[in-house]
C-alpha cells in the first residue's frame, strides 16, 4: 500500500504535476471520443499525417507571435487545413490517391517544421515541441484543455446518432437527411484543437497517442459503440495517470511515458482480449486444425 502511495499518489502532490494530470485527464475525454471515430472510420494514418503537419505552423506561430496557446492554435489550424485541403485536392484532381498525397504533404510539412525550429536556434526547444514537457502546462493551457474537452463532449452528446450513422452507413445517413461533409469537417477541426491542447503534455507527434491507443484498446474489448466511447475515456485517463507517475520517477518526458503506459494496455489487450485477442485467435486456429486432423484420420 505504501509502495503504491509513494509511486502513484505522491508525485501528484506538486502543483505542476496536478496541472499536467488535470490537462491529461481532460484530454482523455476528447481523445477517447475522437479516437474511437479515428479507429472505426480507418482514419488512424490520416491522424498521424495531420499531427506531423502541425509542426511548421506551431513553429512559425511560436517565432512570430510568441507561445500563447491561441497563437499556437492559429498556426496549427493553418498548416493542418493546408495539408487536409491540399491533399484532398491532389487526391481528387490528379491520378495520385489520397493516401499518397497525404503522405507526401506530411513529410514536407514535417521537414519544414524541423527546419524552422532549427533556424530559430535556442528560442524554441525542439525536444519540448516533439515530446512534451509536463512542467510547461500553464493555467492558460488548462483552460484550453478544458474548452477542447468540453466542446468535444457536447458535440458528441448532441450529434451521437449522426456520428454513428456517418461511420456505420453513410448512405443511410444521407437518406436520413444528415450532412456528411459537416461531420467530417467538424471532426477535423475538433481533432486539431485537441491536438494543440495536448501539445504541452504530450508533444506534437505523440499527442495522437492519447486519441488512438485508448480507442484501439477499447475496440478489442467491446461490441457496443457507446461502451467503446466510455471505455476509451477510462483507459486514456488511467494511462495518463500511470504515465505521468512514470515520467516523474524515471525522468522520461511525459509524452513518451504516457504513450508507453497506454501502449502496455494496448499490447496486453491485443494479446489477451478473450474475444478479439491474438491468443484467442491462435487457440481457435489450433482447435480447427486438430478437428480437421481428427476427421481425416
Amino acid at each position, binding site marked *: 500500500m505504501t509502495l503504491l502511495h509513494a509511486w502513484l499518489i505522491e508525485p501528484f502532490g506538486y502543483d505542476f504535476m496536478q496541472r499536467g494530470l488535470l490537462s491529461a485527464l481532460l484530454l482523455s475525454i476528447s481523445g477517447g471520443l475522437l479516437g474511437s471515430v479515428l479507429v472505426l472510420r480507418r482514419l488512424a494514418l490520416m491522424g498521424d499525417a495531420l499531427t506531423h503537419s502541425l509542426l511548421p505552423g506551431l513553429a512559425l506561430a511560436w517565432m512570430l507571435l510568441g507561445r500563447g496557446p491561441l497563437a499556437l492554435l492559429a498556426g496549427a489550424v493553418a498548416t493542418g487545413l493546408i495539408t487536409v485541403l491540399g491533399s484532398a485536392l491532389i487526391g481528387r484532381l490528379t491520378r495520385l490517391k489520397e493516401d499518397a498525397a497525404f503522405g507526401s504533404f506530411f513529410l514536407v510539412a514535417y521537414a519544414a517544421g524541423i527546419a524552422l525550429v532549427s533556424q530559430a536556434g535556442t528560442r524554441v526547444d525542439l525536444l519540448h515541441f516533439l515530446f512534451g514537457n509536463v512542467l510547461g502546462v500553464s493555467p492558460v493551457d488548462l483552460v484550453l484543455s478544458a474548452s477542447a474537452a468540453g466542446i468535444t463532449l457536447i458535440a458528441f452528446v448532441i450529434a451521437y446518432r449522426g456520428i454513428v450513422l456517418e*461511420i*456505420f452507413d453513410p448512405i443511410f445517413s444521407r437518406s*436520413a437527411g444528415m450532412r456528411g461533409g459537416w461531420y467530417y469537417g467538424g471532426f477535423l477541426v475538433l481533432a486539431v484543437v485537441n491536438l494543440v491542447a495536448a501539445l504541452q503534455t504530450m508533444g506534437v507527434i505523440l499527442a495522437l497517442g492519447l486519441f488512438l491507443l485508448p480507442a484501439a484498446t477499447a475496440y478489442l474489448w467491446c461490441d457496443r459503440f457507446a461502451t467503446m466511447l466510455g471505455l476509451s475515456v477510462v483507459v486514456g485517463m488511467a494511462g495518463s495517470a500511470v504515465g505521468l507517475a512514470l515520467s516523474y520517477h524515471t525522468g522520461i518526458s511525459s509524452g513518451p511515458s504516457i504513450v508507453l503506459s497506454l501502449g502496455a494496455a494496448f499490447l496486453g489487450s491485443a494479446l489477451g482480449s478473450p474475444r478479439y485477442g491474438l491468443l484467442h485467435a491462435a487457440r481457435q486456429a489450433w482447435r480447427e486444425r486438430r478437428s480437421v486432423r481428427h476427421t481425416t484420420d
Partner: protein
Amino acid sequence: MAGHDIFRLSDVSVHYGRRAALEGITAQIPCGALVALVGPNGAGKSTLLRSLLGWLPLSRGEIRLGDEHPRHLHPRLAYLPQRLEIDWDFPISVRGVVSQGRWPALGLLGRFNAAERERVDRALEELDLTALADEQIRRLSGGQQQRMFLARAIAQGADIFLLDEPFNGLDLAASAELLHLFQRWLGQGRTVIAAVHDLPLARAHFSHALLLDTRLVAAGPTAEALSEANIDLAYHRRMPVLGARP
C-alpha cells in the same frame, strides 16, 4: 392499395458529366409489385435506383411518387446497402441497427421512448430476428444480415424497398429465404424494387421487370418484359442463348 402505380416516370434522363446514364425512361411501377431492374453492366440500374430515391438530379423528365416527388428523408422509401459497403466489425448489435430506422423521424435528440422500442421489437419479430437481437452483427449469416436491414426499413415505416444486387454473395438457401419473404409481401401493399443481374432468378420470382440498356428496352409483367427477343435487344445479342449454340 394494389392496382395503382406507386412510381410514374416520364422521360427521365440522368447524365454524369456529358455521359448519359439513363435516357428517356417512361414507365410505371405498380404498387405492391416485386420489380426486377435488369440490364447489362452500365445499363443504369443503380442510377435508376438512386433517381427513384431522389438522390440524383434529373437532367430531363420527372419522377412522381404518388402525388409527390421523391426526396431525401421520405419515410416511405428505404434503400438497402450492398453488404460489401458495411463494416461488419462495427461495435453494434442487431437491435442497434434496427433502432436506427427510428432516427430519421426522431432527429438527433428526439427521445427514444417505449413506443419507439415497441416498433423496433415488432420489426425484429416480423423478420424473425428477436433471438438474435443482442448479437454483434458479424455473427449473423448473409441472409440474416439482409433481414436486419429490411427490419430497419420496416421500423422506419417504409413500404417501398429499393435494393442494389441483394442476392450478391448470398448462398442458395439464403437467396431462397429472401425471395420467399418478398413473395409473402407481394400483395400486402409493400413494393420491392431490386437491381438483379441473375436473369433466371428474375424470371422465376419477380412479378414485374424493367429491362434497361441506358434506354428502357421493355417494362411490364416479367414474362413479357424479359422475353428472349427483348433480352437479345438489351444485351446486344452478346448473351449466349441456351440451345442456340451449334
